């Protein structure tokens, strides 16, 4: 039997989700998709991020192989023009005729442009597709000011886009308040106040009569009373379902538009379904993505004969608009009969919170939060799961009084929806844990929970911890059996109590004698705090093998040596020194990935002599052996390069010298690129600096290696001083708070609040520790000394490099053979042969 032919019209967020859900369940369909846009589905919810640097590729929702791998025919840039329901054929604008057995309409919506004379001028735009954004950007480049018509959720997103483009930004709203759907009048007024404080000018209760020519700007919006001049306009006044195809083919359409569907997303034609913003369910069009996803899921079930129905979706939202936190749950306007309200409003903090409570005071029906959405997650759970409210509901939203009732995840029923984007219940998460998913990553992959907006991450983690605990799996973050503390906890103890040695810390806060986990960790913390000589007798027993001999142990027990070459800049005289040393001690030489030269095959007893030669010539330790700053890679920059806009080499050398020797939870790599071509590959480093016309862009928390991660843009166009200040603070905050052996990328991924939190701490000094971090860093910088220089002048330290306690002849078991003109360790069988020869 040949496969059923399934035709999907539209490849937006919901259409794409439907495909993913369907192919995960069945291969029974021969699928064709028609998309009007030239690219596959992308994340419209995050559109404004495009203006702050997020690329189209990053916004794209599926990887390029998705269609091919699943045998789906995908026609981009193709528009369906008619449906012949009797013959079951769809015609396209490219002249194709596509047959179907089942048809899915996922045509979405179009932006509504109010019928105002003059709304079709060249610099009037809408805000929905990537092409719209490109047009907005093009207009913005020749504009000083911009107006967004529409003060709803999307309108404010569009306002952010204009503001990020550097325009004087206005929002014009017909209703008397902003976000009239989600917020009440008080909440709307506070939101307005906050947005105006960000220099976005808000005009409410204004109906635009027409758009004419301006005198000081390109256009003039004429209101009933007054006017407003602007260079460009973006309309964001709501959406309308794209139902024209359904209409012309005679499907049942709602009075105000929208293809009518039943609980199985079926239209008035048994072979045709509709999902997303084109669909009208019980008289409602859902303009949010989560309900669309819910329809996609239900339709995929329906088409695989699973009996699931669509029963409406929650419209609660939590978001940040222009940096202002806004949340709306359920019946925000208290329209339910007999509902009661309790609210708090704190003008000094700019916070407004309102609860809508059932008449008997027991259930939460809705809520409005402006300025602080910290309570959103737990309030949403009360509302969605009909949980009984505490006796004094106001305590749920009162400022941190200490006795705020905590809604433990234990209180949630298994049916409680934890992730609304992907409709994952607490029960689903518990099931995945029972099946062996014991990390956040595993749960995310298995259930999709917290994989879309990430808003429920904390809640998912709480469910995970509670579940593991109840299964008797202890969630233990202790560093090892000798200290019941995390690395962060130990760091604070060392700082606060001024502890200067491992013994002291162990005596006061630990037990036993320590091990190879806690010793190096504490050794590193002590070095980060006090910067004592790491080979001091009281610290030497703590150092990991490499730190212990200030070199990198190789497989045969010999060491490699990496002198510091700041920024990768080295003159011929210094190169000659390296060559001389390599020849003198017969060392294998190789260029590293970090623009340095590694010298291999030194016996432990040779290290002091090698370093004597190196330091005499002016080299310093490169700390390749330490959990510390390794290298600052650079491109040649503006001094030679035709394209360079800043002197990246000088900056790299400055940065490398500043942070050399800083001991940290793990190694740190940096790079400085002299222009946007990024030849130093700064975006794969813990700290990456890229030159701009105006200064430097700072990228953080990237990684190469086993788990590559692109660094994220932390701040733009910084001057030298601010750049260094930020790096000081970021590094010291990392040293303070990261786990043992946790690279910055993982540190960042595990950070609650993510990049924004880090920016808040570093740029806005939200924790008030900025100066402290800088002072601590300055302490490290001021006490830097080359560890090798110190060592070769310290007879007691040198004693440890002697070949044996009781013999001066070196270890004869280290054997080399030659390959391509250099030595390498002999393999076991080669060693055997050499021994046989010797005896013969």
């Amino acid at each position: 039997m040949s496969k059923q032919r399934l035709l999907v019209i539209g490849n937006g967020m919901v259409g794409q989700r439907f495909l993913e859900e369907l192919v995960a369940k069945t291969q029974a369909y021969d699928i064709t998709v028609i998309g009007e846009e030239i690219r596959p589905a992308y994340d419209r919810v995050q559109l404004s991020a495009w203006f702050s640097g997020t690329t189209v590729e990053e916004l794209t929702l599926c990887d390029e192989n998705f269609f091919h791998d699943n045998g789906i025919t995908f026609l981009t840039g193709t528009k369906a023009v008619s449906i012949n329901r009797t013959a079951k054929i769809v015609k396209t604008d490219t002249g194709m005729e596509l047959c179907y057995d089942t048809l899915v309409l996922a045509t979405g919506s179009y932006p509504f442009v109010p019928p105002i004379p003059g709304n079709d001028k060249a610099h009037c735009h809408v805000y929905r597709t990537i092409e719209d954004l490109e047009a907005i950007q093009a207009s913005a480049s020749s504009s000083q000011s911009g107006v967004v018509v529409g003060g709803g959720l999307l309108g404010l997103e569009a306002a952010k886009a204009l503001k990020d483009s550097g325009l004087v930004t206005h929002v014009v709203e017909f209703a008397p308040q902003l976000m009239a759907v989600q917020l009440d009048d008080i909440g709307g007024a506070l939101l307005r106040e906050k947005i105006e404080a960000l220099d976005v000018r808000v005009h409410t209760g204004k109906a635009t009569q027409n758009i004419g020519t301006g005198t000081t700007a390109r256009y003039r919006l004429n209101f009933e009373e007054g006017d407003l001049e602007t260079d460009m306009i973006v309309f964001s006044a709501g959406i309308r379902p794209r139902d024209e195809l359904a209409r012309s083919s005679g499907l049942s359409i709602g009075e105000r538009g929208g293809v009518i569907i039943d609980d199985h997303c079926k239209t008035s034609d048994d072979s045709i379904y509709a999902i997303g913003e084109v669909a009208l369910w019980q008289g409602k069009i859902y303009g949010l993505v989560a309900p669309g996803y819910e329809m996609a899921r239900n339709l995929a079930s329906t088409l695989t004969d699973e009996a699931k129905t669509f029963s409406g979706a929650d419209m609660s939202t939590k978001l940040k608009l222009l940096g202002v936190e806004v949340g709306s749950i359920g019946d925000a306007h208290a329209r339910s009969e007999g509902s009661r309200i309790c609210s708090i409003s704190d003008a000094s903090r700019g916070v407004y919170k309102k609860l809508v409570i059932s008449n008997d005071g027991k259930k939460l029906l809705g809520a409005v939060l402006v300025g602080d959405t910290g309570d959103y997650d737990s309030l949403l759970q009360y509302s969605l799961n009909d949980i009984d409210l505490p006796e004094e509901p106001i305590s749920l939203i009162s400022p941190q009084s200490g006795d705020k009732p905590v809604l433990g995840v234990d209180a949630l029923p298994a049916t409680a929806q934890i992730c609304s984007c992907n409709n994952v219940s607490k029960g689903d998460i518990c099931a995945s844990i029972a099946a062996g998913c014991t990390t956040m990553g595993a749960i995310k992959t298995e259930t999709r929970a917290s994989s879309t907006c990430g808003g429920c991450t904390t809640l998912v983690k709480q469910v995970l911890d509670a579940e593991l605990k109840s299964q008797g799996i202890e969630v233990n973050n202790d560093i090892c059996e000798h200290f019941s503390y995390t690395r962060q906890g130990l760091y604070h103890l060392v700082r606060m109590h001024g502890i200067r040695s491992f013994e002291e810390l162990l005596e006061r806060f630990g037990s036993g004698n320590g091990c190879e986990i806690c010793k190096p960790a504490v050794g590193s913390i002590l070095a980060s705090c006090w910067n004592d000589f790491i080979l001091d007798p009281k610290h030497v027993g703590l150092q990991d093998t490499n730190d212990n001999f200030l070199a990198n142990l190789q497989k045969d027990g010999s060491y490699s040596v990496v002198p510091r070459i700041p920024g990768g800049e080295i003159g011929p005289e210094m190169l000659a020194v390296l060559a001389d040393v390599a020849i003198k001690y017969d060392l294998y030489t190789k260029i590293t990935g970090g623009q340095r030269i590694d010298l291999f095959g030194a016996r432990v007893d040779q290290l002091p002599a090698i370093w004597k030669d190196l330091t005499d010539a002016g080299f310093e330790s490169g700390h390749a052996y330490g959990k510390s700053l390794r290298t600052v890679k650079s491109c040649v920059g503006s001094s030679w390069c035709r394209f360079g806009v800043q002197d990246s080499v000088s900056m790299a050398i400055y940065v490398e010298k500043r942070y050399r020797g800083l001991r940290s939870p793990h190694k740190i790599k940096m790079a400085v690129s002299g222009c946007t071509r990024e030849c130093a590959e700064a975006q794969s480093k813990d700290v990456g600096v890229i030159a701009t016309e105006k200064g430097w862009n700072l990228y953080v928390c990237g990684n190469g290696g086993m788990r590559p991660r692109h660094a994220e843009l932390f701040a733009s166009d910084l001057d030298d001083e601010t750049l260094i200040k930020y790096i000081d603070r970021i590094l010291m905050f990392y040293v303070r708070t990261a786990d043992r052996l946790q690279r910055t990328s993982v540190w960042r991924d595990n950070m609650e609040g993510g990049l924004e939190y880090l920016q808040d701490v570093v740029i806005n000094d939200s924790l008030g520790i900025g100066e402290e971090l800088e002072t601590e860093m300055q302490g490290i910088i001021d006490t830097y000394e080359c560890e090798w220089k110190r060592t070769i002048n310290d007879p007691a330290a040198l004693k440890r490099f002697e070949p044996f306690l009781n013999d001066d002849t070196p270890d004869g078991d280290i054997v080399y053979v030659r390959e391509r003109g250099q030595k390498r360790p002999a393999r076991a069988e080669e060693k055997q042969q050499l021994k046989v020869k010797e005896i013969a």
Partner: protein
Amino acid sequence: MSMASNAERSEALEWFDIAGVDDIIPGTGAPARLGDKQIAVFRDKTNIYAIDNLDPFSDANVLSRGLLADMKGRICVASPVYKQHFCLKTGECLEDATVNVRAYPVTLRDERILVGIAE
């Protein structure tokens, strides 16, 4: 400082003077020669221990450079190459009971470290 307990049982031991106690920094180890063998000598807060210096996993003479580790009360060294733990009293490998190193009896005389091997 007391004499280390040791698994090695032998009627007749020959003792070799290896070094002074203060030649080893407390909490570290150091290599020594014992006849044609290499041994690793360790000093913790109270005791001196001696085991083979050859790490059976990497076939390199490196155990003296490992970190001392208290594994639930057992004093061990963690190999610097692949991190297996060897008990300093018995030479037993905690991760793989089939791979052991030899442990040697140690005694102190006049602040000198003496290591014994069977004659």
